[in-house]
C-alpha cells in the first residue's frame, strides 16, 4: 500500500494512483476482516479450552469425592461389622489391616491406637508399633500424606482417606482407610480426559503426577487459577482449583494444539485475504488500464501536438475520456488547419518580404547604373561635338560607377546564394580555444582601435563542430562587434563550461541594442546597418542550431552587447560512436 501510495505521490501516472486507490480501498477492509476472524476464532477456541479445562477439574474433583465416599463407606463398614470380630493376637494384629483392607477393596488401611501408634497397617506394615508419621493436607481431613512401604524403604504418598473411631478388642482405636492419589490414578485420569492431570502441594513444593508427566517439571503457581507455562520446550495451557488449603488439582493441555489450530485458521484467513487482495489488484490493474490507457494515449497525442505533429489518430474510448479524445481530435484538426493557413500566410509574407528586400537591394545599385548610363547618353546626344577628353572622363566615371554597382549586385546575389546553399555541418572534435584564436587572428588587423580580450577556460572538452561553419558564425559575430565599435572599444571573447556543454561568449562595448532590435535580431533580412543584408545573424543562428546548440543575446543600450553560443558536447559521443 505504501509503495502504491508513494508511487501515486511521486506522480507515476494515473494508473499508479488508481492502483494505489484500489489498494487503499481494498486492503483495510480485508485486514479488518482477517483480524476479526482470527480474533473470533481465538476467542472461541480459548473458551473451548477453558471449558475443557474446567470440565477436567470438575472430573478430578468428582473422582476424588467419589473415592472419599467409597473410602468412608468401606471404613464405616469395617468399624461397624468387622473390627470387633477381628482377631487381635500379636501375629494376627500385624496382618489384620491387610486382610480387612483386601476384603473391602481399600489399598490403604491403618488401625491406630489412642496414642497414635500404628497397631496394624496394610500400606505400611513396617510401621506397626511405631507412631504414625502421616500428615494431613492443610485445610482438609480427607486428604493426607500417608507413609507407604516402597521398595526398601517408605515414601510419602498422597491419599484420600476416611477416618472413623472404633473399638478393637475393647481398645478405642482409629481406623483410617482410603485410596492413593498416586501416579497410577492420575495417569488413568489423564488418559481418560486426554489431558495432563496432576496434584500440587504448594506447602511441600511437590507434584503428584504420572511418571512421565511434564507437569512434574512445571514451576508455575497454581494459585493463579490458570495460565500458560513453558514446560521443557512445550507450552501448556493449565487450570487449577484448590482441593485443600495447599493442595491444588491441576489440569493442562498442550497449548501447541490450540496454537496450531489458531495458526491454521490464521493462515486460512490470511490466504483468503491475500486471494481477495490479488483479485482486487487484478481488477484494479484491468480497470486502471482501461481508464488510464486512453488518457495516456491522449497525453502522447498532446505531446505530439506540442512537437508539431498534428496528424489525427483516433483514440479508442467510449466514455468521458472518449469524449475528451474526440474534443482533442477536433482541436487538433482546427490547429492543423490554422497552422496550414498560418504557414501559407507566412510563406506569402516571406515572399513579399523577400521581394521587397530584393527589390530594395537591387534598386539601390540599379539607380546609379541607370543614372550613369543616362548621363553618358545625354553627353553623347549633346549638340555639337563632344569634348572627347571630357566624355572620356565622364565615361570612365560612369563605367566605374556601373561596375561598382554591378559588383555590389553580384555581392548581394552571392550572399543570397550562400544563405540558400548553406551546407549541413560535418562534425569533428573541435577545440573552441583554437578556433577562437584562429578567427580573431583574421580580424586583429582590421581592429586597430579596438582592444581584443580573450578569456579561454583551460581543459574544456572538444565540441563536435564543423570548423568552417562555426568559424564563419564566430567571424560574423566578431565582425558585427567590430562594426558596432567604429570609434574603438573592447571586444571580449570567452569560453567556459556550462551544464549543457561549452559556452562561447562574444561581447562588445558598442552602443547596444534596443528591445525591438534585440527581438528581431535573428529575423532574416533584418539589419540595422546601412548596406547590410540582414542575413548575418540568421546564418549564425542557423549554424548554431545545426550544431545542436543555441544562441542568446544580452544587450544593454549604451553598454554593449553579448552573444552567447552554447554548444553541446554529447553529440560528440554520438558522432564518435
Amino acid at each position, binding site marked *: 500500500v505504501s509503495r502504491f501510495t508513494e508511487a501515486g505521490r511521486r506522480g507515476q501516472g494515473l494508473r499508479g494512483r488508481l492502483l494505489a486507490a484500489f489498494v487503499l480501498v481494498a486492503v483495510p477492509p480485508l485486514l479488518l476482516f482477517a483480524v476479526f476472524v482470527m480474533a473470533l476464532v481465538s476467542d472461541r477456541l480459548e473458551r473451548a479450552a477453558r471449558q475443557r479445562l474446567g470440565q477436567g477439574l470438575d472430573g478430578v474433583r468428582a473422582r476424588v469425592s467419589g473415592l472419599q465416599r467409597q473410602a468412608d463407606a468401606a471404613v464405616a463398614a469395617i468399624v461397624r461389622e468387622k473390627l470387633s470380630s477381628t482377631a487381635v493376637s500379636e*501375629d494376627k494384629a*500385624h496382618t489384620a489391616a491387610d486382610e480387612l483392607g483386601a476384603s473391602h477393596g481399600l489399598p490403604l488401611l491403618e488401625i491406630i491406637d489412642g496414642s497414635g501408634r500404628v497397631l496394624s497397617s496394610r500400606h*505400611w*506394615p*513396617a*510401621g*506397626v*508399633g*511405631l*507412631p504414625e*508419621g502421616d500428615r494431613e493436607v492443610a485445610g482438609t481431613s480427607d486428604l493426607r500424606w500417608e*507413609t507407604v*512401604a516402597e*521398595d*526398601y*524403604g*517408605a515414601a510419602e504418598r498422597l491419599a484420600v482417606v476416611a477416618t472413623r473411631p472404633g473399638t478393637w478388642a475393647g481398645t478405642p482405636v482409629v481406623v483410617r482407610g482410603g485410596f492413593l492419589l498416586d501416579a497410577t490414578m492420575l495417569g488413568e485420569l489423564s488418559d481418560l480426559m486426554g489431558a495432563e492431570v496432576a496434584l500440587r502441594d504448594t506447602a511441600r513444593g511437590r507434584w503428584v503426577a504420572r511418571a512421565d508427566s511434564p507437569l512434574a517439571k512445571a514451576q508455575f503457581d497454581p494459585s493463579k487459577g490458570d495460565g500458560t507455562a513453558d514446560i521443557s520446550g512445550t507450552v501448556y495451557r493449565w487450570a487449577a482449583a484448590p482441593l485443600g488449603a495447599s493442595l491444588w488439582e491441576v489440569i493442562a493441555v498442550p497449548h501447541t494444539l490450540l496454537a496450531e489450530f489458531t495458526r491454521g485458521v490464521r493462515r486460512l484467513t490470511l490466504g483468503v485475504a491475500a486471494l481477495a487482495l490479488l483479485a482486487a489488484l487484478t481488477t484494479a490493474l484491468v480497470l486502471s488500464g482501461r481508464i488510464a490507457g486512453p488518457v495516456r494515449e491522449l497525453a502522447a497525442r498532446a505531446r505530439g501536438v506540442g512537437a508539431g505533429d498534428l496528424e489525427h489518430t483516433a483514440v479508442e474510448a467510449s466514455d468521458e475520456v472518449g469524449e475528451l479524445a474526440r474534443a482533442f481530435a477536433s482541436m487538433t484538426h482546427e490547429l492543423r488547419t490554422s497552422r496550414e493557413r498560418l504557414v501559407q500566410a507566412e510563406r506569402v509574407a516571406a515572399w513579399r518580404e523577400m521581394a521587397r528586400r530584393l527589390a530594395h537591394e537591387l534598386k539601390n545599385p540599379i539607380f546609379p547604373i541607370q543614372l550613369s548610363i543616362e548621363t553618358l547618353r545625354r553627353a553623347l546626344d549633346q549638340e555639337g561635338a563632344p569634348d572627347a577628353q571630357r566624355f572620356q572622363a565622364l565615361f570612365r566615371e560612369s563605367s566605374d560607377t556601373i561596375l561598382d554597382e554591378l559588383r555590389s549586385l553580384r555581392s548581394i546575389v552571392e550572399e543570397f546564394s550562400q544563405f540558400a546553399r548553406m551546407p549541413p555541418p560535418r562534425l569533428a572534435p573541435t577545440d573552441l580555444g583554437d578556433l577562437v584564436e584562429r578567427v580573431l587572428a583574421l580580424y586583429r588587423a582590421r581592429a586597430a582601435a579596438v582592444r581584443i580580450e580573450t578569456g579561454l577556460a583551460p581543459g574544456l572538452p572538444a565540441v563536435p563542430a564543423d570548423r568552417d561553419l562555426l568559424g564563419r558564425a564566430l567571424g560574423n559575430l566578431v565582425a558585427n562587434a567590430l562594426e558596432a565599435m567604429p570609434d574603438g572599444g573592447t571586444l571580449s571573447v570567452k569560453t567556459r563550461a556550462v551544464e549543457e556543454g561549452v559556452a562561447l561568449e562574444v561581447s562588445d562595448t558598442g552602443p547596444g541594442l534596443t528591445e525591438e532590435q534585440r527581438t528581431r535580431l535573428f529575423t532574416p533580412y533584418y539589419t540595422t546597418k546601412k548596406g547590410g543584408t540582414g542575413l548575418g545573424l540568421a546564418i549564425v543562428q542557423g549554424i548554431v542550431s545545426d550544431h545542436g546548440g543555441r544562441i542568446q543575446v544580452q544587450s544593454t543600450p549604451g553598454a554593449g552587447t553579448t552573444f552567447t553560443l552554447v554548444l553541446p558536447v554529447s553529440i560528440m559521443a554520438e558522432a564518435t560512436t
Partner: protein
Amino acid sequence: MALGAGRSALSALGPRYGGELRIALADAATRIEPSAPRGLAERILAGLVHETLLGVDEEGRARPALAQSWASAVDGREWTLRLAPATFHDGTPVGSADAVRGLRRFLRSESVAAVHLARVLDGGEEYRRGSTDALAGLSALDDARLVLRFRVSSAVPLAPLASPAAAIVSARGAGAGPFVPTTPPSARGVSATAFGRHVRGRPFLDVVRLSTAAATDRGRPDGGSADVTSGGVSLPPATGLLLLLLDPAAPPLAEGRARALIAASVDRGQLARHFLPGGEPADVLLAPTLLAPLPVSAARGAASLTPVSGRLLLKVASDVPQSASQRVVAHLAALGLEVQAVAVPAALAVTTAGPARLLVWYPEVAEAGLALEELAALAGAGPPVRLALEAADSVRDFDRRRAELQRIEETLRGTHVLVPLARLPLPLGARSGVHGLRATASGALLLENAWVEP
C-alpha cells in the same frame, strides 16, 4: 493323591543320580576365579566350581577337603598337609605345586583371611606387599605334601585356607569342585555339570543352572519355574547377619549418641518375628555357633524416644528382604531421621561407601577370630582392635581365646558402627522334590548331596 503318594514313595527311596537343579537368584555371579565372594551368587558358584585345601566346621576346626590330613610340629608353627588324590576339571591331578601356587595367589588377594594368613606366615607380609617373591613359609615337600611355616603360633592357623579365595586351581585355571562350569558367568547366569572325579565323589545332580530371576522368568515358557528361588522358604542355619553399618564420619552419625540411639531404636524381636521369616533377633555380631554371646544390656525403650534429626541416605543391599529394610527405615524415621533408602547390588554392598548401609553379612570363613577381623575391617576399626585380635589369635587356650574374642566383639559393637539387627537363614527356598540342600555358616549352598525327584 496317587501323584502325592508316588512322590512320597520316590522320596523314601533316597538319593538318586541325575536331574537338573535350576536356581534363580536376584543377582548374577560375575566372576568365576577364586576370590572372596561378594554375594550369594558368587558364594554358590564358588562352592560349585572350586575346592579348597580345608574346610572349617561350625567351631572353626579344620575339616578335610583337597587335603586329606595334616600334622603340626615345632610347637604348632609348622604344619604339613597331605593332599588327597584328586583331579582338576581339566583332568590334571591336584598336586602340591598347584596348592602352593594357589596359596601364593591367595596371599596377594583382597581376602581378609589372606591378610590374616600373610601376617602369621613366615615371610607372608613381605610377600603380600610384593616386596619379594620369596615365601619361606610355604613350600612343597613332594607331589602330595606341602608345608606351612608360621612366624608366630596361631590358635587357628589353617582356618584361612578354608576361604573360597584360597581355592586351588590347575595351571590352566580349572577348578576341582563338584561341578564343571559349561558356560562362562554372565548376566543371565551360568550352568555347570557334575564332575565325576570330584574328591568326595560325583554329586547326585547332573546339571546345576544358576540364573537371575529376571532371566529365568523371561526365558522359560513355564514362567520361570525354578527349583530353588530366593525369597522362598529360607534355608537354615540362620547365620547371615542383617547388619546396619554406620559411617562415623557422616553426619548425623558422627555423634556416638546418634549411632547409639539408632542401634537401640530397632526392635529386633519384632523385626525378626514379623519381618524376617525364619530370622532371629541379633544383639551380637557373630552367630552363637561361632562365638557364644555375652549377656547384652541395652536400654532400648527409653532411648528410642529421643529424637535424632537429619537426613540419612541408607544403601540397602539387594539381598536384604524388603520388609526388613522397610522396618528398619520405619524405626529410623520414628527417631526423627528423614531416611532415603536406595538399593545397591548385594555384591557391592560391602565395598561401596555410604553414610549408612544395610546388608546381609556372612563371614568369609566361618571362624570367630577371622570373622571378627573381617568385621573390624568393615568397620574401619583402629589399631587397638587389630592388636587385640592378633593377641587373641595367639592364645591357644580355647576358653581364654573365646573370652578375648567376646570382649573384642563387644568393643566393636560398642562403637555402634556395626549394628547387628537380626540373624537370618539363607534366603533360598526349594520346591518340593528337591532334597539334600544345605547352607553353610559362610552363606554358601552345598549341592554335593542335593538330588531331585524325577
